[in-house]
């Protein structure tokens, strides 16, 4: 009964376990970062796809065409890019230089699409309902901006081929956006500029009643 057993600590096993845990831990983070980077690469690739789409629109515009499907398709692609950029902001950070670069390029493509849509509306009579959405990611305005952005997303989802929504981050240091801000006298966000130039605050979907497209 006086036998006693020793319980030596298995040091080698502890060390190997620690190394394995570190390796897996770092591996998971590396993998997650790689996926974010892949998303970034895909976003860059989609920019080329949208450029091709915009090329097509430029040709249609120069031919004074009233064919609208190409505008809708380009708008859908822009929405995809917006989703990807949103995810990049979450994963890489809102101030990451690559994210900011993509946002500027995205804004440039939006502005070109907006110009062509305005010309289309003037040329073809009936057209798209255009909404400009100015937002900010700064802590003071982020929550309200997210809410308005969500409502606009649902609104666009209801009328995907009749409504065009263009979103601009007022904190993005990009001259065309600064000019747009001055043009519409944007002093606070979030704010939506309707087709008639009216400035509205959108906190529920009913606030967009006047912007619904006609049947």
């Amino acid at each position, binding site marked *: *009964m006086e*036998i*006693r*057993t*020793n*319980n*030596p*600590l*298995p040091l080698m*096993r*502890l060390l*190997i*376990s*620690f190394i*394995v*845990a570190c390796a*897996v*831990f770092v591996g*998971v*983070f590396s*993998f*997650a*970062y790689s*996926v*974010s980077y*892949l*998303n970034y690469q*895909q976003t860059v690739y989609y920019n080329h796809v949208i450029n091709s789409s915009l090329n097509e629109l430029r040709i249609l515009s120069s031919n004074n065409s009233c064919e609208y499907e190409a505008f809708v398709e380009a708008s859908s692609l822009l929405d*995809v890019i917006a*989703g*990807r950029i949103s*995810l990049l902001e979450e*994963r890489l950070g809102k101030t990451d230089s690559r994210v900011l670069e993509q946002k500027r390029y995205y804004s440039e493509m939006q502005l070109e699409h907006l110009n062509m849509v305005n010309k289309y509306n003037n040329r073809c009579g009936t057209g798209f309902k255009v909404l400009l959405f100015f937002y900010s990611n700064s802590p003071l305005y982020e929550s309200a901006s997210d*809410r308005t952005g*969500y*409502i606009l*997303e*649902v*609104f*666009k*989802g*209801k009328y*995907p081929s009749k409504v065009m929504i263009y979103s601009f981050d007022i904190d993005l240091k990009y001259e065309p956006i600064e000019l747009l801000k001055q043009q519409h006298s944007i002093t606070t966000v979030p704010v939506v500029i309707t087709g008639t130039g009216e400035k509205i605050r959108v*906190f*529920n*979907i*009913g606030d967009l009643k006047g912007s619904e497209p006609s049947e």
Partner: protein
Amino acid sequence: MDIYSFLVYALCFIGLFLVSFYSLGMLKHYKKTIRGPRTDLKVSIIIPAYNEEKSIERTMRSVAALEYPANNLEIIVVDDGSKDNTYSIAKRVAGEIRKKGNSPKIIVITKTNGGKGSALNLGISKSQSEIVVTMDADTFTRPDSLKKMMGYFYSPDVMSVTPTIGIHEPKSIWQRIQHVEYYVSTYLRKSFAIINAIHITPGAFAAYRREFFNKYGGFDVGNITEDIEVALRVQYNHFIIENTPSAVVYTIAPRTFRQFLTQRKRWYTGYVHNLWKYKKLFSKEYGAMGMIVLPAALTTLVMALVLTVYSLIKSISQIRDGLVLLQSTGFEFGGWMEINQFVLMQFLYKFFSQPIFIFTAMFIFFLCMYLVFSRKTMKYNEGVMINLVLFLALYSLVYTTFWLISLMYVAIGRKAKWR
């Protein structure tokens, strides 16, 4: 990185470390630890019973059917002053078993109610065998379980041997959750045995050398978790507790939430009190148990409690915000729910770019591996998928709730009850 994320990833790292540590031990030593059965040891099975008229017959018959030489086996049923027909049923069943011939010696005694510990001690005092097995009156065994367990008394150092406990026919949500929990315990108990770190001998069924009680005293009568206390006492005195994964016994899990809560309050408050009593176990002297297993158990418990409570509060807040958003759109989704290639890609990117989701998937995978091991060891063939889903959905909430209530009981010095 905020404090919440830091705690989450710290817990993930600790989890990875522990999984690696236990798995390496299993991979290296599992096959070496398998022992053959033996039937030469004299065994007394003590069954304390209080108001168990519904299950005592099945328990006694399962023990009588054990594949163990009748002349080396003794059954002692101790009725702890039951208010129902437990005693009369036990006496009837004992008579029937004796009539069959070639049956083990069977004794049925009654005493005034004094708790499980006192009933066990009375049973031990009546036994003459070198091995004492304690068994709950709602437990029943497979015929080969006892002889398999006896094979693990391979050294005088081994003072106790534990089997695998399975839940019999889980039906309610709570039983199904415990069903998976017990599967996980099967793997963990064996991996603890490999490093001599078992610190709970299940009251449902466990074997001890009688000489331990002779020298260190019987079960602690005032203790509501006498099974935890005796296990810690064995470890405290530097003996070995072994585990026989292929020796399976079944128990009935609490069916209702109230019964579940009552059981776990008793277990968890008892665990805390007994760990405090044997706090010297948290030292290098006790090897991996003192330096890794027990500290890790407490650390991960505290972190898990904090994170679960925080996550719950955060989830409620997010659900509230989500409802406000939905209300702002008149509960319309527009094309939001449209599934297409881009939405799927977005979902995949979102999932795989977030380390916490990858870790979650990884731990679910480990859990499934534990289930595969346990089911293979126990030779269990019934379905487990729905139980696994319920376990994943509810266990952390249930576990946190029970622990918070138990810690409150400990803090205010309130005693948990048996029923």
